[in-house]
């Protein structure tokens, strides 16, 4: 029998069943949602805090102060002016298809272009969608992509998500303009958000979601779920950029489902948090589907990032291409664990997985664990992890042309990330990220 130290037993989220009941009552939620929330809560309560499981054993989050980090956050005079301007800038030019901004879970800005609404595109607060688009939410919310049984924090999100977004593109609808959402937190405490994106057959969507928070006095948690459902022959470009403050612990489940002949282009950026544990998964469920997943991360000081990726080929003639690039500085630690899986007898599968690490200080530590579990035989799967440092030879070359050392270092690091940043379709966002990377290098 494992004897647990008292502190570990006690240091768990302080939520209770009455928090779930209060949430249901205050939102006046329909019975099906109430039932799902309560079932998820039961599942949550019956699941131990993950600690020694393979995908958790390298991730020590025991230093989180759950009493602070699971304080229920009540929006308090939140306004859009609380949000940094850089997060509100239009993605391209001066237009965007829509901008939703949440502060502490409250929708404070709601702008959707008429041309989107008239096409039948839904882009709204998930709580409103539960009432106004009940069938869609009921059909997709945690039924296909992320499920409550995916883990302790998935069930917690299912029971207690209190804000979120529904993005729904009906069949065949193509939006020219990108859609942009910002989740910003001003208060410390427990934040539970849910993003549900459904792109129906033949539709095409481009979406960016920013996550950020103000410096907080105490620990926060972000227990999040992202579901991307890409229908047959549909096309989704999805960019998610996370810059939570350094007191935040993120536990998130993000999963995409890609239908036949569909294309998913998913870019994920991790810059913030004290600790991140993210499960990023792509289920390729339809013949001829393609998924590209690109991740970048930059950890410094005492940050710890643990990114778990999985590419599941559940249909023949499918491709997946995953590229993660990260850097670590100071005493930061990063871990990437990747897996490509296939169902038996899936022919013509092409799965690619690589994580490139740039170790910027002696005390930083970066680990990468690629993996393959392929049960098909006509496959071309490859995986790799690389590790490098800032090469003096490259710095010298730039300096030999008159560029001072600090700038030469910046250029080499920027260059390392460039391939990845180029996968973000918005020039302004690339520039913003470049500035943030530079701030971390110099900070």
């Amino acid at each position, binding site marked *: 029998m494992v004897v647990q130290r008292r502190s570990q037993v006690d240091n768990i989220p302080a939520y209770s069943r009455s928090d779930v009941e209060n949430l249901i009552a205050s939102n006046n939620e329909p019975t099906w949602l109430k039932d799902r929330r309560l079932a998820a809560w039961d599942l949550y309560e019956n699941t131990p805090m993950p600690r020694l499981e393979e995908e958790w054993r390298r991730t020590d989050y025991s230093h989180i102060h759950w009493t602070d980090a699971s304080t229920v956050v009540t929006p308090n005079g939140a306004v859009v002016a609380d949000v940094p301007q850089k997060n509100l800038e239009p993605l391209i030019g001066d237009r965007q298809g829509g901008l939703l901004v949440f502060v502490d879970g409250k929708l404070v800005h709601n702008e959707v272009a008429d041309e989107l609404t008239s096409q039948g595109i839904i882009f709204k607060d998930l709580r409103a969608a539960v009432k106004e688009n009940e069938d869609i939410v009921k059909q997709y919310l945690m039924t296909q992509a992320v499920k409550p049984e995916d883990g302790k924090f998935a069930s917690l999100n299912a029971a207690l998500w209190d804000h979120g977004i529904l993005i729904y593109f009906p069949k065949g609808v193509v939006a020219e303009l990108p859609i942009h959402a910002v989740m910003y937190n001003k208060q410390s405490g427990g934040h539970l958000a849910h993003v549900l994106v459904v792109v129906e057959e033949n539709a095409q969507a481009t979406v960016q979601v920013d996550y950020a928070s103000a410096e907080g006095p105490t620990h926060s948690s972000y227990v999040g779920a992202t579901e991307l459902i890409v229908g047959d022959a549909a096309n989704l470009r999805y960019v998610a950029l996370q810059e939570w403050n350094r007191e935040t612990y993120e536990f998130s489940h993000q999963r995409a489902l890609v239908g036949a002949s569909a294309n998913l282009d998913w870019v994920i950026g991790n810059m913030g948090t004290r600790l991140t544990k993210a499960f990023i998964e792509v289920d390729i469920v339809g013949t001829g589907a393609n998924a590209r997943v690109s991740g970048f991360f930059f950890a410094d000081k005492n940050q710890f990032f643990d990114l778990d990726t999985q590419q599941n080929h559940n249909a023949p003639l499918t491709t997946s291409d995953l590229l993660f690039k990260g850097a670590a500085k100071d005493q930061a630690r990063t871990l990437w664990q990747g897996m490509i899986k296939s169902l038996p007898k899936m022919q013509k599968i092409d799965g690619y997985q690589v994580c490139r690490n740039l170790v910027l200080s002696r005390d930083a530590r970066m680990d990468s664990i690629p993996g393959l579990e392929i049960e098909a035989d006509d496959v071309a799967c490859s995986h790799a992890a690389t590790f490098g440092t800032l090469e003096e030879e*490259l710095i010298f070359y730039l300096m030999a042309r008159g560029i001072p*050392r600090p700038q*030469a270092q910046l250029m080499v690091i920027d*260059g390392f*990330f460039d391939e990845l940043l180029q996968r973000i379709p918005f020039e302004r966002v690339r520039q913003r990220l470049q500035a943030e990377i530079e701030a971390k290098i110099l900070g």
Partner: protein
Amino acid sequence: MAVELQIRNLHAHVEGDEQPILRGVNLTIRQGEIHALMGPNGSGKSTLANVLMGNPTYEVTEGQVLFGEHDLLEMEADERSRAGLFLAFQYPVSIPGVTLANFLRHAINARLKDEDPDSKGMPIPQFTRLLREKMNLLGIDHSFAGRYLNEGFSGGEKKRAEVLQMATLEPKIAVLDETDSGLDIDALRIVAEGVNKLTGPDMGALVITHYQRMLNYIKPDYVHVMFAGQIVESGGPELALQLEENGYDWIREKYAVAQS
């Protein structure tokens, strides 16, 4: 007044390795002069070039290098470059994610900042014009501006890109380390003509080469032979012809004793 690069009794080895590579090099190059440096493989030519440029791989144990009024060995590589020294590398490294244009613009702007700390840098249209003009001079396709520096460049393309950088930065003294090797016959002519346009009263050059063919285009005023870390013979253009004909055996015979 013409700037002088004065190398006096220069000794150097690889950082962390006692074995001397440069064992007392003496050489003076003035702006406007062309010097050729020849010598067998491994004699120390590239080491000299790198030590002059400030490559931290090498440690100078003795000697002095003056560049105009500057004590070169006291300066960082970037300061040497901005003071007007240039090295076209024998083996240029590639820098992923950094485009040739972006890199050269930074290099120019670093110079402008030296002159005026408030400089906002060269306006992009002006820079683009400058770069195009230099690319035309060296027969380089304009698409190279947007390519990552040296990444996937062929051997000859790398050498041309080195000369392009030289043409853009307009140094006072340039060291060209085997810029001719890897160039096909046409490229050699184009690059050599490019170099010739840059030399003249404003630029001095130390041309490191194994082949007379480069010197057919770039006529040296002086030819030097390096052997075992020292310059053992100096002469006029006829020395290069003599080496082409006879090889280095006579040098080995003449100086092997002195070496051991």
